[in-house]
């Protein structure tokens, strides 16, 4: 994550102080965890500290693809990436103030502003948590709080499985799919055939998004990425422009993992009420 030395608004600092009075757990916490999630986060020896949020309203630059060529819209790719990154780093900033070890249940949302189709709103929101005993060693990259989109249950499960979250990793690629020329369309009349250029565009865009996400995880010194979701979206762009967005939580194996996992004997449950 990029380091931002941004100043939070005074009332934000005030709110965060109320949530956690200088390192003690006496403050009142806020969170959007469900009851089950809350129980499981506490089971994992973590305490919720407060809802942390970061947002970013971003004007997307203009870029045109060549009508009949497949290509990445790099201006848009960068915009989608940078805006998300900014929102996340602002959220991180809040959690640092709370002296949190990390953030669970991060949701990333993108919304289009009504008055201008080039303006998008990005929001990152999650619950900052800290280890109950103050144990260090759960922080993410470079001693910063970890970020993850894991639910409370998943967070507990991940720790039980001998891994700890490092960072929420993203990969984004906005791609212009070439239009087919007239000759090509005419040639396809009556034929059942693959449209290779289109196939290639989708394949390449997905590959690029995945490469980028994997690269981020490597930078975060993670062993792997879990819970990866691949979103395909068009934020009101022209019909031939699509975004592939890969997101997941980069995780790292803990040292005492083996003992932890062996202590757990899972029971298989098959619900019969369909």
């Amino acid at each position, binding site marked *: 994550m990029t380091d931002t030395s941004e100043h939070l608004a005074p009332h934000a600092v005030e709110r965060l102080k109320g949530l956690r009075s200088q390192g003690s757990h006496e403050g009142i916490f806020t969170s959007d965890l469900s009851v089950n999630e809350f129980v499981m986060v506490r089971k994992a020896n973590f305490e919720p500290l407060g809802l942390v949020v970061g947002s970013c309203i971003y004007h997307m630059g203009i870029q*045109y693809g060549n009508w009949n060529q497949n290509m990445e819209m790099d201006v848009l790719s960068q915009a989608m990436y940078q805006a998300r990154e900014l929102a996340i780093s602002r959220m991180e900033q809040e959690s640092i103030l709370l002296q949190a070890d990390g953030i669970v249940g991060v949701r990333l949302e993108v919304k289009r502003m009504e008055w201008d189709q080039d303006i998008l709103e990005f929001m990152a929101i999650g619950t900052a948590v800290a280890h109950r005993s103050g144990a260090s060693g759960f922080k993410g990259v470079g001693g910063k709080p970890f970020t993850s989109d894991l639910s409370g249950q998943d967070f507990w499960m991940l720790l039980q*499985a001998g891994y700890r979250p490092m960072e929420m990793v993203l990969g984004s690629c906005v791609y212009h799919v070439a239009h087919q020329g007239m000759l090509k369309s005419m040639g396809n009349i009556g034929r059942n055939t*693959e*449209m290779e250029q289109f196939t290639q565009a*989708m394949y390449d865009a997905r590959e690029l998004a995945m490469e980028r996400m994997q690269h981020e995880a490597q930078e975060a010194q993670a062993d792997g990425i879990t819970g990866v979701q691949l979103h395909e979206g068009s934020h009101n762009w022209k019909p031939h422009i699509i975004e592939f967005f890969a997101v997941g939580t980069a995780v790292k194996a803990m040292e005492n993992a083996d003992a932890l996992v062996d202590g757990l004997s899972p029971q298989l*449950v098959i619900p019969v009420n369909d």
Partner: protein
Amino acid sequence: MSIWDKIKHGIEEVAQDAERAVENLGQMANKGVVRSQTPEEIQRYSEWEQALRQRRLPNFVQNRMLQTSQGHLPWISTAKASELLLQRSHGVQPIGMVTGNCWYHFGYSWTQGHYDGWHTAVARMRLEALALGANAIVDVRMKVRHGEGEDMDYGVTGTAIRIRGLPPAAEPVVATVSALEFVRLLEDGVVPVGVAIGANYDWYMPWMGTVADQANQMAPFSARYQNMEISDLSAFQENVRRRALYDLREDGRRMAAGVLAHTSYTQMFRVAADQDNPERFLCRHISIGTAISYLPKNPPQHELITMVSLADHPLTSAPTSRKDLI
């Protein structure tokens, strides 16, 4: 769409082409924001092109897969945290996310297109899994994207896994279930092996109209008040369905497996008579399912424990992937 409509449509497209070209030129002149491909991009595209033609992966993808399988790059898994436990309990190791797709144009057959599209996409995903040295692909999701004309993109994504103690498979199995469910099935001696598709379509041109039309002709005033089966249409539709299900079974048989069909779809149209053709009907049926291989004589091994959930919503199994795939 008749051939003439298509040609007309094509000519309209040419006009649009020209319009766009002018628009493009205008943009170039005004703002200089039309980007053209960089040499690296051109290189990348030609590698894709060659690779897809030769039914292999481009070198840069092959390379990333190799790096991932050797642990130089982080593994990628679509699975939730709970499935990481399987690493120790069952030796299931996630390696990487694999994908494949095929954008397909339907010329003479929409139905056959579904069959070819899915099979091509799955074959491509398998190539990636092979490059990772995987034993299986789990959590395979199928997704379609509708094109602008008579075309569609068939996309599959999944997580390639390695099972401890097994050599890399020459043909990794493809399972639409999650790793947890995959292991549960394995424990019962059941192996999900792939995706099976049965698709069939046919035209029906009733001679002298359908049974209902004939009855109407015989007794113009009374037939419409009577209940009657339009038996020829029933038989026609049933035949198309039966042939599609036969194809589904045959597709499963090729993998030596039974099929759990999760998607079934039938559609029937009436095409009104025109100058060249009398009134006719088109019917199509598609079934898509997961092929599973097992020995029927071995009963399931798992014990059943009855339990009551205190949560206010009942325990549910993994969400079913009955999605719109047509």
